[in-house]
């Protein structure tokens, strides 16, 4: 019988003592959110992979600065996001982040009729299209909060801004998106 998964605090404590297996477990736990966070910044899967890898290596070397009991996700995401931003800066170019719906996705709800499913599918495509048309700043904050499901603290870490700024920036981004949705609906 498998035991209860080791909690983050214990893993970080072991990693801080030089247990590389514990750190490998940390990487497994957070590689997806780290990679996707980097992807929303770079817009390139290759750059995101490099940034995430570099970020995890830097985080390992900076483990001594990780405060026991602190939330590990914001700490890790801050390092990875910084790597991603540095990569974009040094490359002097940014790939346009183009989010797409997965092929064959099923809209939520129980057993919709084919017609209802088609309408829902089209609505979502249009909504995503409108998100993609937002400014980079608006798109990043919406992607962080709703698509990556980051907390306010994690979003602040990923965007490199204070948590209070996340709220105001998100509020303005949603207001602008709502305006565009209204305009699209009225057209």
């Amino acid at each position, binding site marked *: 019988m498998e035991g209860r998964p080791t909690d983050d605090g214990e893993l970080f404590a072991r990693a801080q003592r030089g247990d*590389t297996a514990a*750190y*490998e477990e940390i*990487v*497994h736990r957070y*590689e*997806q959110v*780290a*990679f*996707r966070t980097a*992807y929303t910044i770079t817009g390139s*899967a290759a750059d*995101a*992979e490099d940034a*995430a*890898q570099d970020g*995890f*290596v830097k985080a*390992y*070397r900076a483990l001594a600065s990780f405060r026991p009991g602190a939330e590990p996700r914001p700490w890790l995401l801050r390092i990875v996001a910084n790597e991603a931003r540095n990569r974009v800066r040094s490359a002097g170019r940014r790939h346009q982040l183009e*989010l*797409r*719906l*997965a*092929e064959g*996705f099923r*809209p*939520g709800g129980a057993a919709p009729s084919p017609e209802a499913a088609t309408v829902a599918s089209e609505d*979502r495509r249009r*909504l*995503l299209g409108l*998100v993609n048309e937002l400014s980079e700043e608006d798109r990043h904050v*919406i992607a962080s909060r*709703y*698509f*990556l*499901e980051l907390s306010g603290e994690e979003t602040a870490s990923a965007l490199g801004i204070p948590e209070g700024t996340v709220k105001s920036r998100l509020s303005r981004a*949603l207001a602008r*998106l*709502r305006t565009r*949705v*209204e305009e699209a*609906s009225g057209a």
Partner: protein
Amino acid sequence: MPELDRLEQLLADLGGDLEWPATPNLAPAIRRRILARPWFESRWAIAAAVAILALAALLVYPPTREAIAHWFNLRTRITQVTVLPTPTPLPPGPIGQRLGLGDSSTLPAARATVHWQVLLPSSLGNPDEVYVGLPPVGPAGGDVTLVYAARPGIPASSPTGAAVLVTEVQGNLTSDSFGKTLGDGATIDQVTVAGHPGYWIAGTPHVFYFIDAAGKVRYETLRLATNTILIDEGGTIVRIEGDLTKSQALSIAASLS
């Protein structure tokens, strides 16, 4: 018109349906990197750093800098240094030992030992002491030093304890084959004595070095020269040093025969 809460819900639902690039398996590469020593801790990097530091330390020290330059067949002419070595206090005993001039000898014995013509400054007459330096302590071909005690008009020099030292060695005196480390305030003038080229060096005490007959850099380490005239007497370098004026030194050099 969607309500804001409704819009947020739609966005949250949308997040679950997005097509993200496949998350790469990062752990193996990260494990390799964190287990590898940083480049600056690698054995080769440490060895390279030690070698560079050692070379830098050697280059700071003029004798080894010259030796290294010679090894690379490069000649470095040193004309000015800011910090001069402190003169080593002269040990007690005969002046030859105190100055590391070699073995005590006589003029005829010295001439017989070195197999080349030892010149004598007739204006000073016979030396009070004669020393011969032979390899490995002395240069290839040996050197002969004539020591003259104080006499009217030429006082004993405080660094050497003698009035005049005349040192002769086989070698050639060219601008790229000898040098002195000169302190601030020292001057070097090119001179000609009876058709032979030379240099008059005066001022702050200096250290003398030259390329000997075997092509090696020879460095005087036991004494700091006083005012000095160096003359190339056609294969024999003659160094005359003491508390001399330039005209005194030129006069002594002109009397070599």
